[in-house]
């Protein structure tokens, strides 16, 4: 299965926007950096028509090492969750969404 990487994404920016290849790569990195910084600050990142990245606080719980059966405390932590918009869900199911609405949250 083909995997799309930074190289293909910046090539697409280069082709679509007409920036230099270097600058296309830099802008892609800048987009990812800004999103990461917001998430690091505990903020959600909501991209309409695509989905919402948010940070969820997990409490302390007792886990278990599946190999030894030993109990291990899992400390409180923050994890990232992504909720795809209905537009993105429709696309991966081969449907063109009838309404390109706000995306992000639904249901």
């Amino acid at each position, binding site marked *: 299965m083909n995997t799309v*990487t930074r190289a293909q994404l910046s090539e*697409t*920016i280069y082709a679509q*926007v007409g920036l230099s290849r270097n600058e296309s790569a830099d802008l892609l990195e800048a*987009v990812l950096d800004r999103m990461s910084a917001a998430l690091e600050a505990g903020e959600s990142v*909501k991209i309409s028509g695509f989905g919402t990245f948010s940070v969820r606080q997990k409490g302390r719980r007792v886990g278990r090492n599946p190999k030894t059966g030993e109990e291990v405390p*899992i400390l409180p932590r923050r994890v*990232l969750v992504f909720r795809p918009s209905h537009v*993105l*869900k429709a696309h991966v199911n081969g449907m063109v969404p009838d309404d390109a609405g706000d995306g992000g949250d639904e249901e």
Partner: protein
Amino acid sequence: MTKSELIAELSSANPHLTSRDVDLIVATIFDEITTALSRGERVELRGFGAFTVKRRQARTGRNPRTGEAVPVDAKAVPFFKAGKELRERVNKGRPSKERPGA
């Protein structure tokens, strides 16, 4: 942060670009990821994370209100797994010891 806030931040950090350019760049990125996923491909951005499509089998669901069995078709679901670097940034300042081997 919303898409328009992201565009505004990037525009002010890149005064040589018009906000229309920045808008197009941001749209191109998410459109390209969407297109790749809809072809069933994965998108891997090291340090940030990977977008993949998970296949769900058809199953018999239940209407929670009436308890009635309802067939649910097989479907594809977009999935994002945060990369190591982003996962650590999000969880920054928190002790990461004492975890069981992942």
